[in-house]
């Protein structure tokens, strides 16, 4: 049994400008102690997917249209609010992007940590405090006893994120969702925080979902990656496979737009042309088609399902060597992936269908 099994998750937001199709049928599995990266640009639905799993979507706009999220055998979307509250913070903990704004500015660190522990364990304030000191020491905060009495603004950004990590790990959760945990930090601090996070998670056999737009972070931290685009998972693979042999045109674009230290001097970065689709439109066809150099006619009409590559029969969705799967009608060849553009004589990306063609 998987620790977490999300299937066919659809999340919509009702806004004044219409319905936003934020997540469009996302499925993935996660085993105990496994690390999964969720990669994609802003607004691709990575954060929303996880907020939905936690049932913390912004209300009243956000709602789960359909799907399930089975955690340790129970569907999180079916249980009542108090049962969900027991799971939040205790079994599934979250770390958010900006440690400046994720800690309450008017409450001492002590209160914010103690209340977390006492929300789930019947322990005295004194014992919870002892535990908090221990946790702060564990994440490398000097003089934890003294710092416990401080307010968030008295910590640096990196220290604040350490506090967030300590708080998230306070109850030894089985799953830790880290939403862009290092995006707001200095580069030098990023590495420290990531190292701490992966070490503590590994020691406790805590499963981690790491949400990021930074492929470099994913490379060092996760065993498996889901690449998301416009609310779809477009490619999923073991991390090493994904970097060695990217299959989806979007993944290829992401890898080529990433600055590399081993690049030749003067070698330009290759950006992905165009912009992500307007999520207020109901998705038709592959959402990446308008930006895709490999688009064929079919891409404009049908969204391909995630299919296994390499002719493997049994599909592994999780673990160290999951089956490499991609949602694409016209998968680029390895040579094309290296070139970052199609290399077939006479091939041109299929243009968007005209109104007359759609009508027919």
């Amino acid at each position, binding site marked *: 049994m998987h620790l977490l099994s999300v299937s066919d998750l659809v999340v919509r937001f009702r806004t004044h400008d219409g319905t936003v199709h934020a997540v469009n049928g996302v499925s993935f599995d996660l085993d105990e102690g496994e690390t999964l990266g969720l990669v994609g640009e802003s607004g691709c639905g990575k954060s929303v997917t996880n907020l939905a799993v936690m049932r913390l979507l912004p209300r009243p706009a956000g709602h789960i249209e359909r799907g399930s999220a089975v955690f340790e055998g129970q569907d999180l979307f079916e249980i009542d609010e108090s049962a969900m509250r027991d799971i939040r*913070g205790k079994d599934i903990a979250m770390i*958010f992007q900006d440690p400046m704004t994720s800690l309450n500015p*008017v409450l001492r660190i002590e209160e914010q940590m103690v209340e977390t522990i006492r929300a789930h364990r019947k322990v005295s304030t004194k014992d919870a405090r002892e535990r908090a000191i221990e946790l702060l020491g564990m994440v490398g905060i000097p003089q934890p006893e003294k710092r416990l009495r401080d307010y968030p603004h008295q910590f640096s950004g990196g220290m604040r994120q350490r506090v967030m990590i300590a708080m998230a790990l306070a109850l030894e959760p089985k799953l830790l969702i880290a939403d862009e945990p290092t995006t707001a930090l200095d580069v030098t601090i990023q590495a420290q925080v990531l190292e701490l996070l992966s070490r503590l998670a590994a020691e406790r056999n805590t499963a981690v979902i790491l949400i990021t737009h930074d492929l470099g972070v994913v490379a060092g931290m996760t065993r498996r990656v889901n690449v998301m685009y416009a609310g779809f998972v477009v490619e999923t693979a073991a991390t090493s496979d994904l970097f060695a042999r990217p299959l989806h045109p979007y993944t290829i674009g992401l890898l080529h737009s990433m600055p590399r230290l081993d690049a030749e001097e003067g070698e330009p970065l290759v950006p992905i042309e165009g912009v992500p689709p307007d999520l207020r439109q109901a998705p038709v066809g592959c959402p990446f088609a308008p930006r895709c150099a490999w688009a064929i006619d079919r891409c404009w009409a049908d969204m391909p399902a995630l299919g296994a590559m390499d002719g493997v029969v049994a599909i592994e969705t999780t673990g160290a060597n999951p089956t490499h799967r991609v949602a694409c009608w016209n998968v680029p060849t390895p040579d094309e992936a290296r070139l970052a553009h199609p290399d077939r004589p006479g091939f041109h990306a299929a243009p968007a269908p005209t109104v007359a063609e759609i009508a027919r």
Partner: protein
Amino acid sequence: MARFIVRRVIAAVPVLLGLSVLLFIFVRLLPGGPASAILGQHATPQRIADVNEALGLTRPLYVQYFEYIGRLLHGDFGSSYVDGTKVVDVFLLRFPSTIELTMGALFFAIGLGIPLGRIAARHSNGLIDGIVTVISLFGISIPVFVLGYTLAFFFGVQLHWLPTFGLADPTLGVPAVTNFPIIDGALASLQGGTTAPFVDAIAHVILPSIALGSIPLAVVTRITRAAVIEVSNEDYVRTARAKGLTEKRVDNRHIMRNAWLPVTTVIGLEAGALLAGAVLTETVFNINGVGSWVVDSIRNHDYVVVQSLVLIFAVIFMVVNLIVDIGYAFLNPRIRYS
């Protein structure tokens, strides 16, 4: 904190000095003078000149000013030209009523405004929010005297539920100890073994408090609503929920602790405005407070009384603001430590 207070007190000195000069000039710019108020409109110019001479008003202005300030610094707030009573005596007699009225109004505005604001925020843009918005618009739009007389008419004259005159029933013969009607009523109740004087004092303050408190009620409600909605969208509130805290704790500890900051600021401003604005309510409900006294003194050109009273009001306003700032620093650690 002590340094903060000392700094504020020192900063208040030039403000008060400037205010005293302006006050001194402005009350004398009004047409007429205390002599005609004392002597009546048919007084001869000769008698008016005599009275002015006797009051020392014919001396150069700067001499009068420094003499006044000199006395102030010795704790002498002067006496009325018109009836000779000492400003301090009348102030101690009347000010407790104004304080009690102001506190009653604040109690009403905060006690009702914060829950209303929170309810409105929770149901924002729904029916309940709409109803609360209408109530607060109502409160802010109706002039105090209209609301005062309407309340007095319905709850006093028609229904006979509540008294509409003064802050205590003189026939109960409650001895004046502190001059605060409620405190005196409570003392009398304790001594007499009957709750009547205390209940009477409470009953008296209800309608005036509602009349005076209607505008701050509206302001507090709107600010609370806005603050709660804003704070509810903060990241740390999401963190609090993600930690598995109950909604009650998220509300009371994480949202309200932050929402109190703007609300406190507004309450401070309103408290000052209430002290000064009590005059209409005091008139409607026949309360012998400071407000009506200021108006009478201005009408009578009772220079010293006006000067001293306005200065005292300014000091009170500053003290209230200082208390609010201290409270704000207490609520907001980012201010406390910077």
